[in-house]
């Protein structure tokens, strides 16, 4: 899979448009999902996804190592999402209600939770967690999303965020502690 992506990136860097289309197909769901988890908003997630691939298309020559394409795409997406978060801080966009989300786009708990009562409890907790995460500074929130929600390793997060691994570690610890403080008894 990684080899296929690397080959497609190389072809795309040589001007093959079909390769670009295939790369968009391979990454668009991941980027949309990441953007949605950061912004909790379909319209902005859509904007981030679209803009990310347009930027990838225009900046592909800046990518020195085709093997790092995934980090390259994620980095463009997170930077754009951070910009949106910063802009949003000035105008306080409310978290959308589930009914505002199109079609099946709804926050849900993983299928792993089979007990309906437990699922509901977790869903309520998740809603509070996501609201609390909204108040984190953009880079701390981004680190939390990439590491704890997306499940990326710290070195990968560091590559995407363009910072040392130690910074990722410290941002993650600070973000988790803030969340823990805000959620208080809900977590116990």
């Amino acid at each position, binding site marked *: 899979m990684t080899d296929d992506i690397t080959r497609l990136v190389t072809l795309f*860097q*040589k*001007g093959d*448009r079909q390769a*670009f*289309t295939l790369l*968009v*197909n391979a990454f*668009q*769901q991941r980027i*949309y*999902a990441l953007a*949605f*988890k950061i912004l909790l908003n*379909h319209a902005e997630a*859509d904007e981030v*996804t*679209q803009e990310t*691939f*347009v930027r990838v*298309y*225009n900046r*592909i*020559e800046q990518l020195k190592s085709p093997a790092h394409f995934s980090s390259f795409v994620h980095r463009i997406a997170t930077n754009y999402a951070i910009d949106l978060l910063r802009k949003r801080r000035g105008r306080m966009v409310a978290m959308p209600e589930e009914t505002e*989300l*199109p*079609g*099946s*786009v*709804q*926050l*849900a*708990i*993983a*299928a*792993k*939770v089979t007990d309906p009562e437990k699922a509901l409890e*977790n869903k309520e*907790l*998740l809603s509070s*967690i*996501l609201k609390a995460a909204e108040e984190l500074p953009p880079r701390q929130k981004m680190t*939390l999303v990439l590491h*704890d*929600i997306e*499940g990326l390793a710290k070195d990968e997060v560091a590559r995407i965020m363009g910072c040392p691994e130690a910074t990722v*570690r410290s941002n*993650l*610890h600070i973000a*988790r*502690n803030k*969340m*823990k403080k805000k*959620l208080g008894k809900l*977590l*116990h």
Partner: protein
Amino acid sequence: MTHLNTTLLHDYLDGELSLDQKAEVENHLTDCKRCRLELEALKRLKAVLSSVETPDPGPAYFKDLNDRIAARTFSHDIRQPEPVSPVARSLSGRDTLKTLIRLAAVITLLFASFYVSQIVQENRSTRWADKITQGKYAGTDSIESSRDIMEPQAGINRVGSPPPVENTTESDYDIEKKDRITE
């Protein structure tokens, strides 16, 4: 009782401790309720965060997204075709401008150094010519004249050094300057 520091607790949660550190933390947790509760809260937070499911807007959405991306990229293709060779690459777009600026800087430096060396050489030859025409070295033996050249005397400066400030009499340097102006 001292409690576990935050970093240790988070690293334990993420499974990033060495075996020794892990054993140490686990030992502490058996005795310390506060740290145990702290760890439980962090575990719950992490578990719920990792269970956030990817929203699925459906295949029609991604088809539409693909079309919009294609419309913004392929129809307004601003990318250059792949350069034929490294030379062609170096002469394309911004690289050409950079190359021209570097070339201009090198040419300017060459001209400046040539001009400075010309002035220095001209100064030196004018001074010696003046001294010879004034007969300063006539009748002296070679040792004296070489000392004359090596050691600066009052009113005579080494090439390139400014005239002494305290010297109020008209020096060779001043005479030279006057001669050059009248020329």
